[in-house]
């Protein structure tokens, strides 16, 4: 996908048909492989034919700006985001349009995380890097833990900032909404629920009938390059979080390919 995406859009009646991988970790996440640096992530995204990726490190957003930088001129849209952990230990993918929003959210998250040092032996190192993947600094704060934000409160705050919050890998036994809460809370303000690579939307709806009416899609939750998937197909007017929300809601002509 070169920079011809604008041309594609015009030829397509203003619609962008893109593949979106909305859950990618960088080396800032302690559990991620050392290959998860900007140039390699961008290259892998191109190999997979992705039009959008979201950068979602655990409780941190420090590598978002450099990921956007690394993708400049490639036509790949990088959404700055985060995988935030609620007090119930549910993981939530938080997506934003601007680095400014993501960093504001990081400030809030840091206020709600216990002030603890990371233990590299137990969890792994946490690296802030530049656009080439060169080390800038080590993040010493423990990121792989829970904030004291409840799920609904977290979602409301992300929405107030202009972002969208999507419960991550709801099918996962660890840190998944269904395992930890036993059910999807009534009235949850999320445009969709994310599944891990292991479960298809059809399988999920069989296992959990309550998911029948929910938009579902699979993400890589990529901690290594091989984890990155070809994503979910979306039809949008622009690569923004509001458009993605509409795509999952299948409103105003926006749509997503429900596998």
């Amino acid at each position: 996908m070169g920079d011809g995406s604008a041309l594609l859009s015009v030829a397509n009646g203003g619609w962008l048909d893109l593949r979106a991988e909305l859950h990618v970790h960088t080396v800032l996440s302690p559990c991620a492989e050392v290959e998860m640096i900007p140039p390699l992530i961008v290259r892998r995204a191109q190999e997979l034919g992705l039009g959008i990726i979201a950068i979602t490190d655990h409780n941190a957003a420090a590598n978002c700006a450099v990921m956007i930088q690394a993708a400049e001129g490639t036509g790949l849209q990088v959404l700055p985001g985060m995988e935030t952990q609620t007090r119930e230990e549910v993981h939530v993918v938080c997506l934003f349009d601007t680095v400014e929003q993501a960093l504001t959210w990081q400030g809030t998250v840091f206020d709600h995380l216990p002030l603890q040092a990371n233990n590299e032996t137990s969890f792994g190192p946490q690296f802030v890097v530049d656009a080439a993947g060169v080390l800038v600094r080590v993040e010493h704060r423990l990121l792989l833990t829970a904030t004291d934000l409840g799920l609904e409160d977290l979602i409301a705050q992300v929405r107030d900032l202009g972002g969208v919050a999507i419960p991550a890998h709801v099918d996962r036994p660890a840190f998944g909404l269904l395992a930890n809460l036993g059910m999807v809370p009534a009235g949850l303000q999320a445009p969709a629920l994310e599944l891990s690579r292991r479960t298809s939307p059809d399988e999920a709806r069989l296992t959990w009938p309550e998911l029948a009416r929910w938009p579902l899609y699979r993400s890589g939750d990529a901690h290594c390059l091989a984890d990155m998937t070809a994503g979910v197909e979306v039809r949008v007017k622009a690569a923004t979080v509001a458009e993605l929300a509409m795509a999952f809601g299948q409103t105003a002509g926006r749509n997503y390919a429900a596998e």
Partner: protein
Amino acid sequence: MRLRQIVNSLGLGVKAGAAGLDAEVTGAYAADLLSCAMAGARKGNLWITLQGHLNVVAIASLAELAGIIVTEGKPVAVDTLAKADEEGIPVFTTGLTTYEVAGQLWEMGVRF
């Protein structure tokens, strides 16, 4: 109380980390949220939980716990066992519930 004594009394299955079986147990702690265990469990405690994923070993290592009892016959991941062996942190399994195991430990005199 020696960990071996507890293991024998309760009939726990030793799945990994046998190198740590001679530890002195300082007490026990029961929680399934990792963040709670990280904040609340004390050094040398036995951790009773139904979580068997890899992160429980990281928590046990960080908090210097005596071992992890995975309850209700819940599965313990292969990578959890490997890491537990590597760190010498005993991982036990039981078909009993957390409540029952806690009760048995309490009756043996294990406190918090």
